[in-house]
């Protein structure tokens, strides 16, 4: 940076530092009697630029909360200090609903929401920073569905957060664009992190453990936002995802096999690289086509241009939740190779899956989406090496969101 522009930047920063506190009000809300009404009223009366500051302690809540004002910060005293307790919740489909843009949520927890934890819908440029959502009784099909749930939004940053016990997905980003999920811990959910019908997502530096499946990337038919892709899953610790599936039947994640590390289904341009996998008993990495019948001309059920780069694969694939697992294990010498492909590709001349040299895999040898497992012809995977560097341009949350966290 040239001296003149540096001086200009410094002046701008100084101006911001002076003006920001003057413009913004801080609305403090403490736990105690009437917390529901007092907190909700603060969220309604907040104006753009305001901070709603949640005191330390437990807020006993009876209904969902909602925020519909742009540019508001909701800040607690810490994800273990400020707890929004929804154990007594009687209404609404989530603990906190955000429907406005440029919102920053940080340093507080939600416990035992009856439906979803925090849902943000059509809420662009939202940041979740050190937000904890916990269902305190552990895995249970009666727990709510999603912990952190941004949907239909452009610009999503989830950082340093923690979700456990979700009966669907801990962190679920759906029908969105420009996403980063990082530095977070997802534990004992059905799915740890789920990127669905979304584009330009970066999932990095997370710990996914004791879920049924660690990190899921997929597309579903018949949704308003279609065509997911451009997803990078890198530098995550995907370890011991061994919890029995406790999702209610009917949900797409109810079909996820216990012990899945990373699952890529019906998505394009996905890179899985530099992750550490250990003790995922079905498969460390699974790449498959959508299996159900569908009626949606805009839907592509195939996995396309999925690249499995170099990852650290430890023990795994030693208790796969498949029919005929004993035969499979015997055939592969006691455990399955870390990468599992269903064998289904959209085009015969392009397998849709490329694997870095030295990364072992196997294929089910299926040929059509939805084909019966009985038709499988398991065999060692012979995949081509990645053809070129993966195009990372435009993937991840917009850089302006980073600046808000500093």
């Amino acid at each position: 940076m040239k001296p003149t522009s540096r001086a200009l930047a410094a002046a701008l920063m100084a101006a911001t530092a002076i003006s920001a506190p003057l413009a913004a009000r801080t609305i403090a809300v403490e736990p105690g009697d009437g917390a529901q009404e007092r907190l909700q009223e603060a969220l309604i009366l907040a104006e753009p630029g305001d901070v709603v500051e949640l005191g330390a302690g437990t807020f006993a809540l009876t209904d969902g909360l909602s925020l519909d004002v742009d540019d508001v910060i909701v800040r607690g005293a810490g994800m273990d200090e400020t707890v929004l307790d929804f154990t007594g919740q009687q209404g609404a489909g989530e603990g906190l609903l955000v429907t406005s843009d440029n919102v920053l949520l940080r340093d507080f927890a939600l416990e035992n929401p009856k439906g979803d934890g925090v849902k943000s819908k059509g809420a662009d440029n939202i940041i979740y920073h050190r937000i904890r959502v916990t269902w305190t009784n552990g895995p249970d099909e009666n727990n709510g569905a999603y912990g952190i749930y941004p949907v239909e939004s452009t610009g999503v940053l989830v950082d340093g957060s923690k979700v456990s016990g979700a009966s669907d997905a801990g962190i679920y980003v759906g029908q969105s664009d420009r996403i980063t999920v990082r530095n977070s811990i997802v534990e004992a959910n059905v799915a740890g992190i789920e990127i669905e019908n979304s584009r330009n997502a970066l999932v990095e530096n997370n710990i996914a453990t004791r879920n049924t499946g660690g990190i899921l990337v997929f597309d579903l038919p018949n949704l308003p936002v279609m065509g997911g892709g451009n997803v990078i899953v890198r530098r995550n610790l995907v370890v011991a995802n061994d919890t029995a599936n406790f999702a209610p039947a009917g949900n797409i994640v109810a079909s996820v096999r216990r012990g899945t590390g990373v699952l890529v289904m019906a998505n394009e341009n996905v890179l899985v690289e530099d992750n550490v996998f250990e003790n995922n008993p079905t498969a460390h990495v699974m790449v498959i086509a959508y299996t159900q019948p569908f009626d949606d001309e805009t839907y592509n059920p195939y996995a396309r241009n999925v690249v499995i780069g170099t990852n650290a694969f430890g023990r795994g694939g030693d208790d796969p939740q498949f029919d005929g697992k004993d035969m499979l294990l015997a055939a592969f010498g006691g455990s399955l190779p870390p990468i599992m492909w269903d064998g289904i590709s959209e085009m015969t001349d392009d397998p849709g899956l490329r694997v870095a040299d030295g990364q072992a895999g196997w294929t089910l040898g299926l040929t059509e989406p939805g084909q019966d497992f009985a038709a499988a012809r398991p065999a060692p995977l012979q995949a081509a090496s990645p053809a070129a560097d993966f195009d990372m341009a435009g993937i991840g949350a917009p850089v302006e969101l980073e600046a808000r966290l500093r």
Partner: protein
Amino acid sequence: MIGRGVFCLAVASFIAATGLARSPAPVNDDAVMEGTRRALSEYNFFTDLAGQQPNFEVTPYRLNMPLYSDGAEKLRFVFLPDGKSLAADGEGLLQFPVGSAIIKTFAFGEGADRRLIETRLLLHRADGWLALPYKWNEEQTDATLALAGARLEVERPGGDTISYRVPNKNQCKECHGLNGAVVPIGPKARNMAHGWLAQMVEAGALDRMPEGADTLPVWEDRADADAEQVARAYLDVNCAHCHRPAATASNSGLDLRWEQDGAIALGILKRPVAAGRGSGGHEFSILPGEPDRSIMVHRMDSVEPGVAMPELGKSTVDPDGVAAVRRWIEGMPAS
């Protein structure tokens, strides 16, 4: 432009016919147009607030197919500003001029036992619609603004006591939100009685009879109506304000509007997306011929947060609504 005099005359004759007293005090236009008033009485929508007797500028209406809210009785009114009228827009919403208001009071109990619970206002201002909830006091003399909503014990006509939820200001928008703005949802041309529309045209309060409008079945006459028509109308009125494109539940891909005719969009053989435990172990929103295996029925039949649909304004199941949807699904040929 239609003069207030003509409208007043017509409304006055309507009021005379229904035996209501006439008051000379007009509605407080300033309150409708700006600020937030603490008390419902400040708007002067009523000559007798507790009796819910409307001002001479305020016209009651009813809906063919009402929205269920824990069995509450609802008293509905519209206010149009001086010299302005409604505009017909096909079978969609009647278009309200800036300065108008829609007033809906929720009550439980009959006759002398009737308790007014809340009055919700939709005020059409220069910058759009504003939704405000007012909660009635114990003495039943006035209602005060309840921005954060409330939860209160209410005894229903059947004798059971429920925990009734007065929505907060944001929750109003969850049902009334479309493309990020607040809009009315009830007064669609197809859901208004033909006679009422004609009367409004005659009074100069509606520009013309809505053309090409379907008419939704009248709820009380549902036993004699076509099962599909009844169920579709019920879903249109009770669910489609969220389950439609650009509204609160758009991400579900479920579109329950009357004008939708795609089977999957309506839920038929549609798999759940973000239903979580709301799926109840079922695979499809609607499984033809199998209401007991349909997520839609399961969620309508529940009051458990996280399962219950609708998510808001529901402390009790609407047994008649569930029955109407069941009847429709039962009659579908199994696939």
